[in-house]
């Protein structure tokens, strides 16, 4: 089987971006996911300035108006909420805060958790002990209580939300990173790098981190949904996002009392969360394969047979 791959003609000289794009095209699910995510990001960037007015305009006649009814205009195609505001416009506007909080919290937690995990896994026992016990403290402290205290003291705002949600998620990244680093640093190629004289920084950046990254990215995409829902429970308690600002999570919790007579209030934002998470997950799955030289042929195999 190794012979086969060696017999393959060398890849044509294409830029890295073009190769990545063509690999994305090979995986149709990942390609669709990428487009969906791009759309969501576009909504998040342009939505509030274009539809902000429409989304907050109350129309008490359209209270809980059912979806798929175009009589009240296109904005009401997904129905109206309990104050008669169009669901579609609100979903699009809500994308910004939702994405900001979720992406911010996940990125922050990932960065801090991975850094501490690398340090804990790579350095000696004592440093590791201090960091790990710190993580245990965070994990054993009820996260909701922490959130209530912090947000009560600092006041509810998007940066504070990001901070609180990130802190509660840090231990997950920290523990995973540390466990993987402990294993990877014993691998032969790390030893080979030490023998060549590689610095600690180089070993971490070139040899350890690339092996750990796919796992972390996968966890991060799954965490995205968790953070969106955690944010909604904070909003439910009144210490999260404050109306008229709106997020998908908040929409889910606001729609919950109406589930029996107006299911669309909670369903559409829920669907949005599911779609976003699913798209992220599929894309991260594709990325794991595309970034692994030993797996990459799965995305390239068809390209050679096409030609």
């Amino acid at each position, binding site marked *: *089987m*190794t*012979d*086969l*791959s*060696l017999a393959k003609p*060398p*890849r044509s000289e294409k830029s890295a971006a073009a190769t990545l794009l063509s690999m994305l095209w090979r995986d149709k699910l990942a390609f669709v996911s990428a487009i969906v995510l791009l759309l969501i990001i576009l909504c998040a960037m342009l939505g509030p300035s274009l539809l902000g007015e429409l989304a907050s305009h109350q129309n008490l006649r359209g209270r809980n108006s059912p979806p798929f009814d175009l009589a009240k205009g296109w904005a009401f195609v997904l129905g109206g909420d309990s104050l008669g505001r169009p669901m579609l416009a609100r979903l699009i506007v809500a994308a910004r805060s939702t994405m900001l909080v979720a992406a911010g919290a996940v990125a922050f937690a990932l960065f801090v958790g991975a850094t501490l995990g690398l340090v804990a896994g790579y350095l000696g026992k004592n440093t590791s002990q201090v960091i790990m016990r710190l993580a245990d403290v965070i994990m054993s402290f009820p996260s909701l209580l922490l959130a209530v205290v912090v947000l009560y003291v600092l006041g509810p705002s998007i940066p504070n939300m990001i901070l609180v949600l990130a802190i509660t998620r840090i231990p997950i990244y920290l523990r995973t990173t540390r466990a993987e680093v402990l294993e990877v640093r014993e*691998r*032969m*190629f790390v*030893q*080979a*790098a*030490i*023998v*060549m*004289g*590689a*610095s600690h920084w*180089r070993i971490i950046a*070139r*040899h350890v981190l*690339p*092996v750990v990254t796919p796992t972390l990215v996968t966890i991060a995409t799954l965490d995205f949904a968790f953070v969106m829902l955690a944010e909604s429970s904070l909003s439910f308690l009144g210490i999260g996002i404050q109306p008229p600002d709106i997020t998908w999570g908040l929409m889910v919790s606001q729609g919950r009392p109406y589930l029996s007579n107006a299911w669309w209030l909670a369903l559409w934002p829920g669907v949005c969360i599911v779609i976003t998470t699913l798209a992220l997950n599929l894309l991260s799955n594709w990325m794991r394969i595309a*970034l*692994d*030289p*030993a797996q990459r*042929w*799965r995305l390239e*195999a068809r390209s050679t047979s096409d030609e």
Partner: protein
Amino acid sequence: MSNALLEVHNLSVDFHTARGTVHAVRHVSWSVNRGETLAILGESGSGKSVSANAVMNILDRPPAQIVSGEIFYDGQDLLKVSYETHRALNGKKIAMIFQDPLSHLNPVYTVGWQIVEMMTAHGRPADAARARALELIARVGIPDPEAALHKYPHQFSGGQRQRLMIAMALMLKPDILIADEPTTALDVTIQAEVLALLKELQAETGMGLVLITHDLGVVAEIADRVVVMSKGEIVEAGTPRGVYHNAQHPYTRQLIGAAPGKGEIRVLDSAEPVLLETRKLCKTYGKFTALHDVSLTLHRGQSLAVVGESGSGKSTLARAILRLEKADSGEALWKGRDLIAMKPGELLGVRREIQMVFQDPTQSLNPRMSVYQLISEGWDIHRLMPDRAARQAKVAALLEQVGLAPEHAQRYPHQFSGGQRQRIAIARALALEPELIICDEAVSALDVSIQAQVIALLDDLRKRLGISFLFIAHDLGVVRDFADTVIVMKSGEIVERGPTGDIFAAPQHPYTQRLLAANLDPDPDIQAQRRSAGMGP
């Protein structure tokens, strides 16, 4: 149809993989009778295990597909019988043992439980099974059988685990025992013991033995008949003696030619200055002594072999010299400066001068780096060769030097075979123009013919570039071909040292003598002579 006990007739197996169909074996036929030993000889990827796996019905289908052929056991075609019938035969009439007993014993059950299960699974009463297990464990030479039944697999050594596997396989007195590389993971002295045990047990029970191996020495020692496989086909069949002396197929001739231990023995030119000297190196792990007062000298251009079995401390020695492991006491002088006491800044310079080639290139090359990145990493670390064009030219030159093509630079390690990977590892070591290369079992994981190529490559580099080698190995044949001086280690201590010729001709220490005696010669005649000599007074 002949009346052999087990006969594989015209068997062809395909593997359907994502990259197309691979013909794993094509039109393979062999047979084995009661009391007879058949060896299936081949290198990795030759398909030597596939037909045995088909006999045991443990091929994963798909991806495997049996395209043609029959397997007759006792007159019935095993490929046509039902799954249940086959299961009843497996273990009871045809048993199998594997290369790595640790991964084939379940770590969470006691050994006794697993051996007894072998019989209870075939419907025998538990107390009879226990009695038989005790008897067999004693028979295969495990001390204190009663206590052994209650121990877990990790509490035994590798050789003992293989004995336990044999005991387990023999529980139901099978007619056929298939042994897939049973001694490959074992030290030579243990290998000799296990082979002797297999032969004794065969004489007692009269079972047929199918031995799958890559080692000509094992064939010479134990087989009555041998079939040689290459690329899924049987290229040669006959008695070991006939095949060894009158090989017809070019592949067989190449295989026999590649067997180490036949070259001229090299003599050291000691006029060169001393490059590396260790003085009384010591290292302990808890109560275990890995190194005890190890002192050695290595001259420029010398190739010094360190020989010993697993656990003798030979790898720890290399790791201590390279500071991968901190020695407890002692000195390692590199051109007169102590490596052990060296400060990090100073050490960086020395790191360029000493390189290492590891045992398993699959693990020692970062799978996420291209060959170009792997080879040029040393230059990044030591801030050498800033010019990109010069680097590319040098990488291409290095690849050619180790027998690969310049266009391989953009590929990744997994796209190469084991031997090619080891060449990449050697090219990486050469990139920094070292004065000493430490090879830790650098060729043990490779097939014989590739092993010979790599040894020839290293030898060429030594001659042309004057590089010194510290060569750690357990295979005495390879050592004999490559080293000019040999150090024999046992339990962390050096028990014997001297020029290669002296060590091989007249070993002084009893351990060295044992090691040499256990080393199997690929020539069946020499092996037979040794056996008869061993049986004498």
